[in-house]
């Protein structure tokens, strides 16, 4: 195992192995803490992998996925020597906070973690994740939906994590409310805005939708759909921030305008009031992601049978596109002492036909593998909550329209907080959203500069 070799040794290995890469990328990868163990960049031989998988090992895996023990049992059956210990360290940000603290402390970090796509750059910038290429991860590329692979790979081609589930965005809508008010399912954002005004005028207690003022993830998904490239990092220390470019301003004017008119809701989501509103029919649509159909059928039981799914309304009806909101991956922590076992586990868990299918039937995950998205057993599911509509088929179609080039900033938490306090605040306060985009841009820019990045921006 190369993790104990001296830094200079592994650096030489690294340079030999990546001779084809540009010097910039090589420097980037070596720019981290030289005291930390560097990962292998030469392929690990199958013999070494086989040997490691027969060595008794216990892997610690931080994940918030409920009942994941079922999937893990399949792995442990295949590799009886390797045991996986599951720790639930919280979902999303709480887990990342604990992880960051453990990494800083130098002890207590697990071997593997559940990680959302958008959080990956935040952890690769601190050199915390293991490149999985030496363990054969590249070979899995063709099995996954194209854009998911773009989300887990680095600028130098590194594979930082294995996709687990996804959240291409679509629109869940109340067929009964639409029918009652004679509203057609909007296919463009213009139609959507007209419908919002019409519906609210007809019934002041009902809004066409709610754009949560505390949900930067939804905003990023909508930006993604509109073709925006808010964050572009050509190299480790360079970033272009353009969260108030023309595309963003178009979005800001659109949503800020509807909020100001008062024809859409802007209440925080995933709160008691919001759940009640969904149950009560205050909102006729929920612009959300592919994981939402299963989630909604559990949390708005009173409305069973009334919901349907459709793609998001489009900016350009001729070129349907969507963004992604949510979904996550399995990543290996660079400091792990069990790199081979952890890397094999991450790959098995998320690409084995049996485990990936189990994720769709046990956890109702929306898959990241092409095989499942094309599998009639998955797409043919017709839940009664959606009036027997094949909801998975709708979202499987949407999945192929997600742009593969969207990137996240290496300081996601800051970007998200700043969004809530500028753009979100403007939506909630019926203030000028376009000028709030400017505040978001300037706050993020000064943060990034303060963190030593070379920043370009619109």
């Amino acid at each position, binding site marked *: 195992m190369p993790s104990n070799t001296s830094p200079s040794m592994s650096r030489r290995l690294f340079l030999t192995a990546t001779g084809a890469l540009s010097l910039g990328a090589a420097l980037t990868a070596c720019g981290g803490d030289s005291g930390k163990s560097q990962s292998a960049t030469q392929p690990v031989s199958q013999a070494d992998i086989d040997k490691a998988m027969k060595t008794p090992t216990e892997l610690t895996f931080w994940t918030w996925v409920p009942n994941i023990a079922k999937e893990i049992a399949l792995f442990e059956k295949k590799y009886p020597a390797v045991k996986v210990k599951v720790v639930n360290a919280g979902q999303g940000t709480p887990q990342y906070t604990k992880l960051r603290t453990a990494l800083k402390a130098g002890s207590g970090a697990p071997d593997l973690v559940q990680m959302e796509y958008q959080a990956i750059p935040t952890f690769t910038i601190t050199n915390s994740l293991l490149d999985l290429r030496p363990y054969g991860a590249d070979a899995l590329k063709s099995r996954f939906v194209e854009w998911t692979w773009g989300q887990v790979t680095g600028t130098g081609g590194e594979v930082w994590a294995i996709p687990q589930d996804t959240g291409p965005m679509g629109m869940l809508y109340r067929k009964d409310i639409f029918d009652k008010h004679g509203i057609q399912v909007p296919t463009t954002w213009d139609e959507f805005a007209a419908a919002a005004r019409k519906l609210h005028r007809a019934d002041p207690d009902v809004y066409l939708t709610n754009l949560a003022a*505390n949900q930067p993830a939804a905003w990023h998904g909508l930006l993604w759909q509109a073709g925006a490239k808010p964050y572009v990092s050509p190299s480790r220390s360079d970033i272009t921030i353009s969260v108030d470019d023309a595309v963003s301003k178009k979005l800001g004017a659109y949503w800020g305008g509807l909020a100001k008119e008062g024809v859409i809701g802007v209440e925080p989501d995933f709160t*008691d009031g919001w759940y*009640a509103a969904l149950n009560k029919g205050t909102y006729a649509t929920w612009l959300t992601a592919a994981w939402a159909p299963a989630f909604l059928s559990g949390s708005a039981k009173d409305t069973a049978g009334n919901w349907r799914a459709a793609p998001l309304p489009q900016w350009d009806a001729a070129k349907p596109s969507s963004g992604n909101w949510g979904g996550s991956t399995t990543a290996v922590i660079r400091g792990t002492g069990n790199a081979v076992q952890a890397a094999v586990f991450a790959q098995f868990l998320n690409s084995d036909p049996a485990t990936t299918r189990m994720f769709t039937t046990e956890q109702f995950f929306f898959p990241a593998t092409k095989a499942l998205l094309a599998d009639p057993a998955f797409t043919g599911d017709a839940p009664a909550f959606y009036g027997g509509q094949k909801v998975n088929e709708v979202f499987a179609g949407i999945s192929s329209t997600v742009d593969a080039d969207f990137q996240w900033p290496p300081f996601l938490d800051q970007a998200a*907080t700043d969004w809530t*306090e500028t753009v979100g*605040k403007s939506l909630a*306060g019926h203030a000028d959203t376009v000028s709030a985009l400017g505040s978001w841009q300037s706050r993020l820019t000064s943060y990034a500069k303060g963190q030593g990045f070379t920043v370009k921006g619109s």
Partner: protein
Amino acid sequence: MAAPRRTRSAGPLFVAPFMILFLLLFLTPLGYAAYLSLFQERLIGGTAFVGLDNYVQALGDSQLLHGVGRVALFFVLQVPVMLALAVLFALALDSGLLRLARVIRLGVFVPYAVPSVVAALMWGYLYGPDFGPFAQFARELSLPVPDFLSDTWMLGSLANIVTWEFTGYNMIILYAALRTVPTELYEAAAMDGAGAWRIAWSVKLPALRPALLLCLLFSVIGSFQLFNEPNLLTKIAPDVITSDYTANLYAYSLAFTGQQVNYAATVSFLLGLVIVIASYAVLLTANRRRTP
């Protein structure tokens, strides 16, 4: 010769447990924070020694100043109300005139036993503009729905939660202090013709002064460290309670959102200094009043 030596060696032994804990749990973290505050670690470029730069930045940081200003305002608003209520309850209980004194004492104290996280969640529900009971009641009566979670009301709403939580706690301290007042004083006052109110005003309240001062000091520290309640309400009022709403919340956000651990240490250190100064000011004014 033997006896004094034993005394001398026993002293440090008794003090040792305190000193060890004091060193480990108080001085070490404090020292470490002070040490951290002299550096700057950046995502690009690593860690550098910056001397007092962080302090210079913090003193001109409007987000920090607003946070400190807000908790100072909170202190001025909330603490007098809470302590007045605590004194009233303590006097009422001590008067022995209340029926069900035990039940009342427990009833006032119980909110303190509720963890502040639970309290904030509970009040968050009560304040809710759609399904909160206050809002529903107002709608029933066709009155305007009170917007407890708006910018204007938020500080008051927070003050209400904290008052609800800590009145009983302060009452217990004051009540205990009242129980130590010698009953001869009351008898003497009664013999001089003082009624119940007169005794409360002229005998009991002066006797309460040291305990009240203690409560006040705790309140200074608690107010300036305000964190739990706003941190939980931010989920239902994200556009009102920003990440720099209170100074403590700001330090937390710096460390865990912005990954600016060093600057967060600086802010925490300065906040500690503010609390020391505020506490000292309170003590000084109280002492001056006692010795005119």
